[in-house]
């Protein structure tokens, strides 16, 4: 679907339809970004609550519903990261970060454990760009818009993130 076509489609899309259609995208994005499925569920719900409140202000001419939802999800996640940092700083539990990781898969159903560990070794920023470009298959320009950076920077960040992921997988295998 072209951008204009998507905009026209989004114009007449209801919130319920948009939520139904893009819930998995938002959830996958948040799961990669936070590295915490439980938090991703809560943040996804919070994202759609915010989106519901802001739905009247959504302008299809400025971007697709999916990008708009991802932007809301990112803002919500950043707030969560800040709150987490404050909490960890207060509780001084940085050391617990590694041992707190649950045994259940974090980033996908059926992913190899080595790949799970490699993804966990990436920073949230690196996982974020992989989520947008690989999982959500956003164009470079659109992903850059969500991240608030240039298209070139987005491309560079993706290359480095994938290279690091490969290194981590290789090291895990070795």
């Amino acid at each position, binding site marked *: 679907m072209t951008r204009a076509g998507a905009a026209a489609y989004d114009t007449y899309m*209801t*919130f319920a339809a948009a939520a139904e259609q893009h*819930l998995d995208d938002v959830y996958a994005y948040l799961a990669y970004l936070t590295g915490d499925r439980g938090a991703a569920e809560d943040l996804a*719900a919070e994202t759609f609550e915010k989106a519901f409140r802001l*739905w009247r*202000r959504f302008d299809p001419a*400025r971007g697709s519903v999916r990008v708009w939802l991802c932007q809301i999800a990112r803002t919500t996640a950043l707030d969560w990261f800040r709150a987490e940092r404050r909490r960890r700083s207060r509780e001084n539990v940085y050391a617990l970060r590694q041992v707190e990781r649950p045994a259940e898969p974090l980033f*996908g159903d059926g992913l190899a454990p080595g790949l799970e560990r490699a993804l966990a070794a990436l920073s949230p920023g690196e996982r974020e760009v992989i989520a947008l470009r690989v999982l959500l298959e956003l164009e470079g320009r659109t992903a850059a818009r969500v991240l608030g950076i240039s298209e070139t920077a987005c491309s560079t960040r993706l290359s480095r993130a*994938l290279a690091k992921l490969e290194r981590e997988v290789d090291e895990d295998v070795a």
Partner: protein
Amino acid sequence: MLPELLLAARPAASPALRERVRAIGVAEPVPRRRLPRRRLALASGLAVVLAAGAAGLAVGLTGRSSGQVHYGAAVVHGVSSGAVRQPDLAPAVIPTTPGRLQDYRAHLELQVADAAALSDRTKRAARIAHRLGGVVTKVDLASHGRSGTALIVMRIPIGRVQAAIGALGALGRIVNQHVVITDAERRIDTLRKQVQDSTGTARQVAEARLERELRKARLSTVAVGLRTPPAPAPAPPHRESTAVRILEAEGRIGLYAVLVAGPILLLAAAAWLVARVLRRRSERRLLET
């Protein structure tokens, strides 16, 4: 290879989350279709500029009344300075009343071509006075460059004043004339009675006064003012210049607004940019750990 693996194992929302999100959108809000802000701002800016231009042109081109008032003022100015040519006046040859003693005074203001003509017409005016049996009582000629003025006052026998005014009026273009005729019969009758009633020195004084009044009544006073055309007045403003003036005023107001608001806007933009950079740096640090 890796991207395909990641895509194939993409995490999906749990049924519980799906139900939770479905519950959010119970009261369905309708998205509001809004005009794009940038287009709206651009269109508004263009509309303001066009309206300002149209208003300036409309006022300038249709405001004929104000333009004519100004032009009229220039015309009035032109009359006094002689910048605008008006129809030539014919000499006002007002005949005397035969058989009555009158005090006849005439003043003609003539315009001549240049300083050379001014000198020539002054001489010719004196010759006319002499030819008609009159005398020149005053000549005042001043010239500087191509311009100048002259005043010739002459006494002309009352019987030839009409010929004198006709001849003098032909020396240049009449731009102004003034004739005053005052009946002197009563004043002279009074003097005559004083002569009859008085004796001795008083009679002599009365006779001298009577003689002076009779001489005065026999000669008219004709003053001729000559002058060269004044320097050309500045061209009257065109009607279009009113529109230009309005547009200039609007431009000045716009410039002042930019000058006043510019630094504030620049500071605001700089503050916004700094805040954005700091926010992005903070976000990057947050997502790097």
